[in-house]
């Protein structure tokens, strides 16, 4: 799988969700063949205006070929049907990939028997499908959670690998932001009471299955607009071709229905028409591969439009825990003495902050990480809200570290403490008895590579705003280090909501991540709200995407997927239209060289005969669909850059490339086709 989560081998036998790797194998074509055949039904075809025209055209040409059978007429008819078939195949392959995922999901949805609590506290056994919103069920170690809900009683470790693919169990407990459990996951230890929060058939897994299968796939706004443009082009070409017949009659060279239909099919944007729905399905699929679940394709598209990204500082931009990054000895103490004392004071301190002090001592000063036997005899003094310090009493020494307010500081020490605070760090003073030895600088460490990512986002035109509960001073320092464009300090949930409103008033689209119930209003208001899977049900309901890995930086990838989706559509449309030039050069001389021999000069590809020219154009037009299926599924390459650079590149590749490719392709097909007796 191509996600950020690595699945250990131990999870291989668990019902882990299989995610296709995003590569395309020819075998998928064969597997999807029966589905592709089913899509020949007119009810299905009529949903795609471009391909419907091809379908009708194929019928017409078939009737013509039956009336006037020859190698040429029959071959053209067959290849027109192939055009429809290849379009069906593209869609079927895209859907097939989703179906495989849906099947493995469905396996997790074994209809669990639920232990429902009656009002009087006794239990009854009911099938999971009969649970209603508000029902309370008991789940114990080894049992499967029968439906989505919130833990209202107890604490348990839960294996969510069936949904997330992540094998490490997670803790779920009543109250707080880690209370949500998902139907289909397994409780590994302890006992919890879960209040069901979704109706049967609308659970998370159900929605996920519906999504990956594309059953409820609705066209997204940009897809609708593009379909209108493609229909317009189709109408224009229909007119151009239909009007050509009277002009041809006027010129003394009436054309057959077969030739006119072949011309029409070659001109209308079949390439993009055939691949359009596959591109949409595949875009959703790429999202699922990254363990992100969107409630609608519209949300994915909106992700590509985002102007402003709200990111929580903690856990997203920084590691979330303050880490010791420096020792500052004061009042004549030396660095080694300070480091030794800092280590002593932290030996028994199990907090991440305390561990980071030990780490720094090990890294910088070569001190041992583990306490010696002698050191273990010391007495640990835990942190209390009154003293605001912790440490160890050993051999009559009282070694302490803690907040500056708990110590009598010299002017030098005070200055350092203030400096560290101003620079966004947290100072921890270390003292041996009454003697202050120095200050530990605790800093919020920005994750590596964040500055580069924000620079990429800036190039894409996206402004990042860091949201933090820190004071403005600290926030400013971290914002500068991480390279975000702006920050919101001392933020309360309502401030987040206000910021989103303000951005949207200015016409900007806003994306954010969140997990708490507090975040729900902001998630609902944001144009793209990604809820963390570890979050509350309220947050998951409010957002329009859920990240199963609960990785807030994933938002950046979601934006890229949204953009890639639109770019793929635009690029293939351009390619499709650009192709028409070569087709004119192939077919027009074939049609009219008989009445105006000078038009033979347009036959720059030197195609053998009028029949081979027309057939070659039709064959190329059909084959290019198959050739481009992998591209449609994978999406065109997207590298974050400014709009002009992107457009220039895509115009070059798909515009200029779209003009050149068919000249070469039709010429090559003609070299083969001319060998067929009766055509060459």
């Amino acid at each position, binding site marked *: 799988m191509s996600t950020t989560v690595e699945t250990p081998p131990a999870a291989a036998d668990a019902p882990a969700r299989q995610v296709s790797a995003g590569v395309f194998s020819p075998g998928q074509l064969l597997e999807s063949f029966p589905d592709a055949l089913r899509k020949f039904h007119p009810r299905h075809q009529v949903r795609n205006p471009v391909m419907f025209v091809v379908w009708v055209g194929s019928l017409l040409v078939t009737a013509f070929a039956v009336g006037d059978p020859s190698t040429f007429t029959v071959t053209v008819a067959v290849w027109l049907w192939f055009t429809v078939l290849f379009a069906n195949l593209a869609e079927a392959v895209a859907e097939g990939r989703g179906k495989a995922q849906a099947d493995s999901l469905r396996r997790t949805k074994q209809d669990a028997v639920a232990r429902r609590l009656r009002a009087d506290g006794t239990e009854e056994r009911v099938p999971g499908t009969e649970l209603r919103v508000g029902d309370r069920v008991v789940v114990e170690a080894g049992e499967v959670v029968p439906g989505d809900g919130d833990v209202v009683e107890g604490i348990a470790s839960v294996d969510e690998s069936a949904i997330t693919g992540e094998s490490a169990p997670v803790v779920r407990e009543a109250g707080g932001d880690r209370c949500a459990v998902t139907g289909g996951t397994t409780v590994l230890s302890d006992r919890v009471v879960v209040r069901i929060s979704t109706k049967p058939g609308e659970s998370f897994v159900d929605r996920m299955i519906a999504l990956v299968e594309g059953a409820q796939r609705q066209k997204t706004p940009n897809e609708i607009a593009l379909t209108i443009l493609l229909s317009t082009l189709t109408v224009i070409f229909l007119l*151009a071709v239909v009007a050509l017949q009277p002009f041809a009659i006027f010129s003394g060279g009436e054309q057959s229905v077969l030739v006119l239909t072949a011309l029409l099919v070659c001109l209308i944007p079949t390439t993009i028409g055939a691949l359009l729905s596959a591109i949409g399905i595949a875009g959703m699929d790429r999202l699922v591969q990254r363990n992100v679940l969107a409630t609608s394709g519209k949300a994915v598209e909106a992700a590509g439009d985002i102007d402003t990204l709200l990111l929580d500082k903690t856990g997203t931009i920084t590691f979330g825990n303050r880490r010791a990054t420096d020792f500052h000895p004061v009042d004549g103490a030396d660095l080694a003495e300070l480091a030794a004392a800092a280590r002593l004071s932290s030996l028994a301190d199990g907090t991440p902050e305390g561990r980071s002090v030990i780490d720094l001592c090990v890294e910088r000063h070569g001190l041992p990480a583990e306490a010696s036997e002698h050191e273990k005899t010391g007495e640990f003094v835990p942190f209390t809200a009154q003293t605001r310090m912790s440490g160890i009493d050993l051999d009559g020494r009282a070694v302490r570290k803690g907040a500056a307010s708990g110590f009598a500081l010299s002017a030098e020490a005070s200055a350092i403490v203030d400096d560290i605070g101003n620079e966004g760090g947290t100072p921890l003073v270390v003292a041996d008895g009454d003697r202050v030895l120095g200050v530990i600088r605790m800093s919020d460490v920005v994750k590596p590579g964040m500055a580069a990512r924000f620079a990429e986002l800036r190039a894409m035109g996206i402004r990042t705003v860091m949201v933090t509960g820190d004071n403005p001073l600290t926030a400013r320092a971290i914002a500068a280090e991480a390279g975000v464009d702006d920050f919101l300090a001392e933020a309360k949930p309502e401030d987040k909501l206000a910021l989103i409103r303000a951005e949207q008033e200015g016409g900007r689209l806003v994306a954010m991540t969140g997990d708490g119930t507090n975040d729900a209003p902001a998630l609902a208001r944001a144009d793209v709200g990604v809820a963390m899977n570890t979050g509350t049900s309220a947050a998951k309901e409010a957002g329009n995407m859920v990240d199963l890995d609960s990785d807030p930086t994933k938002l950046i990838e979601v934006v890229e997927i949204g953009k890639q989706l639109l770019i793929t559509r635009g690029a293939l449309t351009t390619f499709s239209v650009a192709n028409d030039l070569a087709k004119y050069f192939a077919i027009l001389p074939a049609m009219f060289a008989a009445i105006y021999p000078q038009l033979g000069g347009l036959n720059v590809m030197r195609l053998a005969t009028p029949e081979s020219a027309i057939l070659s154009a039709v064959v190329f037009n059909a084959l290019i669909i198959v050739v481009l299926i992998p591209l449609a599924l994978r999406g065109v390459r997207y590298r974050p850059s400014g709009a002009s650079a992107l457009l220039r590149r895509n115009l070059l590749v798909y515009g200029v490339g779209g003009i050149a490719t068919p000249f070469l392709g039709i010429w090559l097909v003609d070299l083969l086709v001319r060998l067929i007796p009766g055509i060459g």
Partner: protein
Amino acid sequence: MWAGVAQAALLVVALAVVYRPFGDHMARVYQRTEHSAVERAIYQVVRVDPGTEQKWSTYALGVVGFSAVGVGFLYLLQRVQSWLPFDFGRGNVEPGTAFNTAISFVTNTNWQSYVPENTMGHSVQLVGLTVQNFVSAAVGLAVAMALVRGFVRVKTDRLGNFWVDLTRGTLRILLPVAFAFALVLLVTGVTMSFKSGVAVDGQTVAQAPTASQEAIKELGTNGGGVFNANSAHPFENPNAWSNLVELFLILVIPVSLTRTFGTMVGERRQGYVLLGVMGTLWTAVLALIWAAEASGVRPLEGKELRFGVAGSALFANTTTATSTGAVNSAHDSFSGLGGGGALLNMLFGEMTPGGVGTGLYSILVMAVIAMFLAGLMVGRTPEYLGKKLGRREVTAAALSILAMPTVLLVGAGIAAVLPSTPGALGNDGAHGLSEILYAYASASNNNGSAFAGLTATGDWFQASLGVCMALGRFVPIIAVLALAGSLAAQRRAPVTAGTLPTTGPLFAGLLGGAVVLVAALTFVPALALGPIAEAML
């Protein structure tokens, strides 16, 4: 050759001189809030409250209603001509001709299926045709301004007041400039007379109030002459200087409107880039026509010696690229490629630089389509000038673009197979088809220039060309106003690094490419059997 280059250079310099002041003047005309005493009087008489703005649908109703009344009035006027003064016994105009002419002048096409000096008296000319020369141009301007307001305004359903825009365009732009240049044309030798004609050597030479007509004929990109020979007639266009003045008048509004546009949207470069695209295509087709005519077998066939190859090519290119339709040479006698160039200008959809107002809104519609595709290719919901291009916008733009090819191809297609058609044509084969295509391109694009060679007085041509003119004018106008309505209702998206800039050469190339590509893809099959087959002989 060098005289021709000098003429083109003078033309460009003259346009450059007036570009800023005139463009800004037009912006002020449509943005001001006060009304003059004359305007207030007019609003009182027609019972319009100039302070009330209209929704797009009301605005469109105004345009269509006003034009429909114009057609009815003009038709009646022609049909009762014999009872009007200055009719010189020319009698009531035939119903078919009257129908065709009424639509023709109201739609700013000015296709003339009649011989003016034998058909229209001075009353119909002055009270009917000339009035439409002014107001049909003002309608085009009004629609363009409504579209620009759609881009400029945010979260409103109001696009301005059609009656106010119409009045202002007529009184503050068209009338003063036409008046001044009528005098200039008189100085260059254009005639002005209310007589029906003068006797010279026993022949009667027709006379008319020419100079006043000529100024608005060119300024409003109308093109309907008072003489059959149009601007090839020595009374309408006596010499190279008058030729230059007329070219200037044709181009001055369409060209300066790009400045008006830039000023109104608050970024002048947005207008310059449109002008750049228009100018490049105008120059390219001029070079094509000029080269084709200069290297022709009989370069001066069909051309006035007063103007020569250069003056004729310049005029032919300008009149077909502006939906004017005035001619100073016989386009039918041009070489296959030269005539094809004139035809191509029309098939572009009249936007290089196009007619008064129509050129601006047509190229903006094309920009919407181009930016839609470009927007997808940079991975964002497409936008232009801060407005998103969604389903409604694309539908309106597509409808606007679809109208012209539809009526053109359907009309020309039927005409090509009618048994009566060969009798109406001057030629058969490829040139015959070019004549048919040219006539329908001219009508559907509201150009009005004639390839000649085609006798369009039969019932089929009178009726079908009339329908083409009406649909080719009003379907796009309604679609453009609908587009303006949905744009104005939006808020404006801010400019970020992800926004595709629309002021640089990349956008210019994209837009120019879209104009050429749409025309090429639509019309190449038809052109292959007409001009291309001729040119490749």
